């Protein structure tokens, strides 16, 4: 795998963040991705993840994943105590490889979606969701 200078910088930045953040470690997320992909390379793009930029409440955050021709899409919440969220396996009668659900986010973090395509290739995307801390306990 080759890195451009920018990618290397970004990786370095991520390492600093990893050092600063408590559990969970990004290694856990990487392990989960590896388990799903068998360590195969992932294309950036080819899988779509729709999530609000700012979630009004972390308890119920609407998300949608889709990837043309995917047989499965795994969703991870990298900042949750337990990063796995769901894996959608699409059967022969799936009209599109698309699903919407509502998820819990422990705080502001990146959500990662990895799609497994019918030809065995993989695609990955991620999105940052800011989770606001409420004012009124009410």
């Amino acid at each position, binding site marked *: 795998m080759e890195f451009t200078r920018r990618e290397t910088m970004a990786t370095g930045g991520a390492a600093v963040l990893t050092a600063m953040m408590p559990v969970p470690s990004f290694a856990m997320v990487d392990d989960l991705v590896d388990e799903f992909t068998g360590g195969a390379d992932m294309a950036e793009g080819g899988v779509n993840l729709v999530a609000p930029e700012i979630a009004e409440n972390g*308890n*119920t*955050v609407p998300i*949608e994943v889709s990837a043309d021709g995917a047989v499965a899409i795994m969703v991870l*919440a990298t900042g*949750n*105590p*337990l*990063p*796995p*969220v*769901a*894996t*959608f*396996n*699409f*059967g*022969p*009668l*799936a*009209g*599109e490889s*698309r*699903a*919407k*659900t*509502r*998820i*819990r*986010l422990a705080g502001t973090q990146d959500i990662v979606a990895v799609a497994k395509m019918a030809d065995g290739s993989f695609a990955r995307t991620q999105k940052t969701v800011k989770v606001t801390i409420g004012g009124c306990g009410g």
Partner: protein
Amino acid sequence: MAKGVRPRVKVPKTASSGDVVTIKCLISHKMESGQRKDKEGNKIPRSIINRFTCSLAGETIIDVAMEPAISTNPYFEFDATVTESGDFKFVWHDDDGSVYEEVKTIQVA
């Protein structure tokens, strides 16, 4: 069986052969994550629905592995290709071994 579980599904009653229809479903379930503690500081044991499947005439549309990060009252929306009349079968699997099922029939012209 967890308390107060009730499924709710929305599928069109009719469609033409080859149509892609959108399906929505929700089930009332507390989805206790296993991460919370009670007032005495004891961990509240995990109790979630861990798998959801939807099929039409026995053929799979979607099969979802669910984790504690799925919100209370789990909701899913997805698409199905319909070719002939038949029963949509919705199945939710609870950690406690319970299985909740719902069936909806679609007429395909």
